[in-house]
């Protein structure tokens, strides 16, 4: 199994231990509080993803092992919690693996509603933006 898939399975497993929505959300709020994991200097207009409901900042860098490190933040804590999960899954991975991966595991942990475009919390655009970074770094590598 790919490392992304393994991480997703781990998260599904963790969430399966919760009995109800309240425990799930308490956990996400905890995760959210462990953010920001973005350097203040990257919280710029350029890196902002404007949702109607909450705002998200996203930044990405390539490390020496040719893996992408994502950092992000949001002004809403539940949005932050989901960002924390997405970053755990996609960060420290090679661009080509990020591009192959999907986010179906979010449905399985009962958070699907947060990835609905009509919710306008910036998360859908954030995932798109994560993939855009992967495309950009991927083509950079191919050229090098």
């Amino acid at each position, binding site marked *: 199994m790919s490392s992304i898939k393994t991480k997703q399975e781990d998260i599904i497993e963790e969430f399966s231990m919760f009995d109800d*929505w*309240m425990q799930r*959300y*308490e956990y996400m*709020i905890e995760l959210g509080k462990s953010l920001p994991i973005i350097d203040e200097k990257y919280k710029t207009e350029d890196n902002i993803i404007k949702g*109607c*409901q*909450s*705002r998200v900042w996203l930044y990405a860098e390539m490390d020496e092992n040719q893996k992408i490190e994502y950092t992000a933040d949001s*002004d*809403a*804590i*539940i*949005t932050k919690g989901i960002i924390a999960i997405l970053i755990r899954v996609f960060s420290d991975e090679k661009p080509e693996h990020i591009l192959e991966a999907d986010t179906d595991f979010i449905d399985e942990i009962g958070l699907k509603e*947060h990835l609905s475009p009509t919710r*306008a*919390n910036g998360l859908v655009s954030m995932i798109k933006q994560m993939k855009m970074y992967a495309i950009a770094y991927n083509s950079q590598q191919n050229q090098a």
Partner: protein
Amino acid sequence: MINTSEQILDVEKIRQDFPILQREINGKPLVYFDNAATSQTPKAVIDCIVDYYENKNANIHRGVHSLSQIATDAYENARETVRKHFNAKSANEIILTAGTTHSINLVANGYSHFLKSGDEILVSAMEHHSNIVPWQMLCNKTGATLKVIPMLNNGELDLQVFDDLLSERTKMVFVNHVSNALGTINPIEEIINKSHKVGAKVLVDGAQAAPHLKADVQALDVDFYTVSAHKICGPTGVGMLYGKEELLNELPPYQGGGEMIAEVSFEKTTYAGLPHKFEAGTPNISGGIAFGAALDYMNAIGFDKIADYEMQLLVYATKALEEIEGVRIYGAKPEKKTAVLSFNIEGIHPYDIGTLLDKMGVAVRTGHHCAQPIMSFYKIPGTVRASFSFYNTISEIDVFISALKKAKSMLS
């Protein structure tokens, strides 16, 4: 307090009229406090729509056959119900539209033929985006200048600045009767009087007022008044533009098509008279008829009773909310607004509160409520808005308050 409020209206009986109020959300009984976005629909209105398709469906204003006549009569009766409700002089002054947004665009488009550079139009800082953007487009097209009537910290308009802004250059003034984000009831009588003194026309967006109070367009002497049926127990996608007959006569048609013509040849088309001149194409027939049924339903309960009852809900909820530490309520005191509570809890994002309340079955609106200038004024990303209707209860407010406390403790 609880007893008196139950006495004004028989709420338990009223709730039986609304099938949706019996349903559950996320395993909890629905507490619907997003009435300012759209109201729920009573059985009488739903039945009216079903009855139309089962018994009356035909195109209107164009058939000699009986069914077409039946449908036309039902539609025109609804127009008459709307006329009576808002006390317009003539049914010619009631244009049935797709809602407030459509009504406003219709007027804005019409005035694009009359305005020119140097003219000024005034818009309040408290408007819904649908009462801002069409006027910006109008100004871009005509070269007229858009000026803003600012608001004060207490959620009211700054009428002193309004006085200063008014001049003989002012051609039009746009203001909502009630603010959707804050619930403030604006002093539209004064605004209309003063605007008329300099010769300006006034459009009042009544979308948020109509569910709570009955506007009399003749007493107000307002030039244009707009309403959406879906906020007053009616269906979505239908509404009203009221306009004084002489003004509507001057305005060119908005859309061309069937229904709005008298005679058509390729050389020249003459337009139909009011109100049909502004009703091109087959309208939302069932929606129009149901709009009438919705007003009948609300009038049978009585707007005075509705207002008194909603005020009790608002006072009760305001008091309970103020007792929660860190709560800031935006906008006016209960006496100066409709049953809307727009608030934040210190250090907590409205999106987080809305998400957790939903999990507990409570539907509120969060965000900027299509009124970003108000949010910029208060320097906040948005608010949580709980808006009440006459079918809500004190015990639902108790559920909301305890859910809010729970959400707060989870988030702090």
